[in-house]
């Protein structure tokens, strides 16, 4: 699961050196960031504070955070169980008590993290939300006194999510009368039957 590189070894030595309570807090923070989908765990200021409290340089703090992040991401990638994760970490050289902290945190957060990662796609426009209005056309310059129901559908399209923030939102408004709405419904039913066939 983990490829032992030189950088990783350095990171592991930091993990072994750090205080256990601080490691707990760090792990909680990293897991929360992954659960909400952003890859930036700490801001600049927070990194400075962390460095000073640990007695490390900025470089070393960043490496520490990156190593913890990497371990969790690899665990998600392989979708390993907590016990298996524990074994891998022991083999990599982390001490027993710290390994326990990792496995506990993974046990609580695994599902949320995996679900979040499942939704990530290579940036393409995604349908985020749908809004609608139902109107009744009663008169126009061409025809006085008519009753013609019309639906307005607004599709909110979000394109590209980098670092958890959407890049651009586009709102597409389309008008349908009854026949056109039936046509759309027909299309959607076809798609649904395909989705059902997959199960």
């Amino acid at each position, binding site marked *: 699961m983990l490829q032992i590189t030189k950088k990783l070894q350095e990171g592991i030595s930091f993990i072994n050196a750090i205080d256990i309570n601080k490691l707990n807090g760090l792990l909680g923070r990293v897991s929360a960031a992954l659960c909400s989908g952003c890859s930036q765990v700490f801001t600049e200021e927070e990194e400075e504070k962390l460095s000073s409290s640990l007695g490390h340089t900025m470089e070393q703090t960043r490496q520490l955070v990156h190593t913890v992040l990497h371990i969790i*991401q690899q665990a*998600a*990638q*392989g*979708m390993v169980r907590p016990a298996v994760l524990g074994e891998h970490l022991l083999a990599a050289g982390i001490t027993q008590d710290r390994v326990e902290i990792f496995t506990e945190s993974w046990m609580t957060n695994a599902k949320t993290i*995996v679900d979040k*990662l*499942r*939704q*990530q*796609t290579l940036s*393409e*426009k*995604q*349908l*985020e*939300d*749908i809004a*609608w209005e*139902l109107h*009744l*056309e*009663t008169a*126009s*310059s*061409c*025809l*006085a*006194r*008519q*009753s*013609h*129901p*019309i*639906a*307005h*559908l607004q*599709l909110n*399209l979000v394109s590209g999510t980098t670092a958890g923030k959407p890049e651009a939102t*586009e709102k*597409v*408004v*389309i*008008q*349908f009368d*009854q026949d*056109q*709405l*039936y046509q*759309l*419904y027909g*299309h*959607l*039913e*076809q*798609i*649904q039957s*395909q*989705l059902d066939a*997959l199960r």
Partner: protein
Amino acid sequence: MISCASPRGVHENVVFTASVPCEVKTLIKTSHSMDKLTFRRMIKLGLGFLQGSLGQEECEAVMKQLCESSHTATEESVLNTCIQYAGVVSLLRAALRVNTLTARQDVFLADLTNIGLPEEFASDVCKVVYGSARLDIDKQLISTTPALPVMTNLNWRVEVTISSSWLSRVLDPVVTLRLETSNGSSHTFQVPVSRFHQLRFTVASLLHQMEALKLSPICKKL
């Protein structure tokens, strides 16, 4: 509607509620010298123009034929024909706006003859307004009213992602839709399964509400 008293008794202005446009007045003045066939051809051309079924060039070609068919094409006679045609289009436009459910045919006919249109021409216009082709004419008129872009084409694709750089086993279906609208733009986007269900539910509930709206008292009144 404005009612006015005249020697023939009180009548309602059904077609032109405010005032009669000048081109229609000119049409009425010259209608006595106009031949019936020409009037009918003008009505046909006017209908084609209003419904949008005849293109610009086709309209011009038919107009040219009309101008040349009546004796010698002097500048004055061509101008007259054009003004008469303008009158016919305005008359048709106003006549087609009239709601056939509330205005009776005889009242309509009486109003036209009161403005001064000869009997035969008035009955021709009546035939167009109350005739069997009315439903088709209405459909075409409704389609030319101001509207937001309409969906012209929908292409779709269902995909299952097997694995990604974030997760080695994804196995989640995703729907990709390409929507083309009447103003020429094309939108391609992915719809996650939960949003797809929301879209389907929205469309179904809108259809249900439209049906209920059609049966409701508001629609019955109109």
